[in-house]
């Protein structure tokens, strides 16, 4: 296997903001003046904190109704899953699938990947480093698509406002779901993918 030089071995620090290679020992990047860190500060602890908070909020996000629909006199409340099932049963399986992917699959995948990364980095595992690195980039790319449901509820609630005839109102579930999306995004941002590769340096 090819031997790679690590920035930390060459007394270099990458500036996370502007991508400049700075000489180790200075506090701020000479180019953009942001603070330099060899690794993101308290990466594992912060990621774990955001991860746990997100996981806790994920429970009310799924249990509480996210939308109240009053159509022609008959009112009903929908949670995320019951909304998907309703679409499926009414025959629009494509929309049901889209919402299922954005609101159920993507958040679950994010929790799974972040959990795996946290545990393996904690254990300084050298297992599947390249693949884990790819997984991290995957959740960075797909993570924000979960906001889909929040925006759909906002649009639909803004449109259907005919007092007596029909109306749609947002409910608490959407608040928790939105917070889950934000918290998992923050968790992914505070995770430092270089920790995956640090295990190799220590074993060598």
């Amino acid at each position, binding site marked *: 296997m*090819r031997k*790679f*030089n*690590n*920035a*930390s071995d060459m007394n*270099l620090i*990458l500036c*996370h*903001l*502007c*991508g*400049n*290679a700075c000489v180790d020992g200075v506090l701020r990047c*000479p*180019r*953009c003046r*942001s603070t330099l860190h060899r690794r993101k500060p308290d990466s594992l602890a912060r990621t774990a904190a955001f991860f746990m908070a997100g996981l806790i909020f994920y429970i009310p996000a799924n249990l509480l109704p996210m939308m109240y629909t009053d*159509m022609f006199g008959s009112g009903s409340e929908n949670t995320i899953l019951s909304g998907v099932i309703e*679409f499926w049963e*009414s025959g*629009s399986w494509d*929309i049901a699938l*889209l*919402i299922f992917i954005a609101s159920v699959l993507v958040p679950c995948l994010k929790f799974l990947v972040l959990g795996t990364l946290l545990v393996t980095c904690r254990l300084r595992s050298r297992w599947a480093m*390249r693949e884990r*690195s790819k997984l991290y*980039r995957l959740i960075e790319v797909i993570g*924000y*698509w979960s*906001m*889909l449901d*929040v*925006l*759909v*509820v*906002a*649009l*639909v*609630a*803004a*449109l*259907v*406002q*005919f007092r007596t*005839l*029909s109306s749609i*109102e*947002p*409910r608490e579930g*959407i*608040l928790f779901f*939105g*917070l889950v999306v*934000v918290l998992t*995004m923050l968790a992914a*941002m505070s995770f430092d*993918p*270089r920790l995956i*590769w640090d295990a190799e340096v220590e074993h060598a």
Partner: protein
Amino acid sequence: MSKTSWTICEHCDAVYPSIFLEQGQKTYCLRCGSVLEVVGRLNTQQMLALSICALIVFCIANAFPVMSISVQGLSNEATLWQSINALAQGQISVIAAVAGLTIILAPLLQILLLCWVLSFAVAGVAAPGFSVCMRALEYLRPWSMLEVCLLGILVAIIKLGGLLDVHPGMGLWALTMLTLLIIPISGKSIRRLWEEFEGGPS
């Protein structure tokens, strides 16, 4: 400060000697497979043109309703701002702030900052507050979610389409154009301005 001659992978900390890239070229890290460096296809002038265009389209997308519905003689329409407002009712107004940030505030700030920085860059000078603007652009990037909003509108159209008459509005066409326009200008290719104005005005 001597000229930077190293490129470091932000995902695994591997160091490579910097090489010169042509427009549209990309380098990948051999160890972890992530993109090391990318040079956009657009020069500063073209990016400025697209930014100004995006600003105009942004105004249209926000001024006109994105969709309207009608049922039994009654009709209603909604702009992006009204959608955000619909979330602000009741006890869940926090989420309205988040949604407002992702589909209105973040894209608007991105476009304004790009226009500001690029219009000075075209003249070959660093804009006042260059480094603050460039840093703000880096922080804003993950929070701009126009493409998600666009998909959300399409889902809402289909969702309501079964029950009511739904018509896409002017705002939707403008938003579609804006989403396409913002892709080439909001990426990391703006980082090359750091090299042009290294240090910036102090």
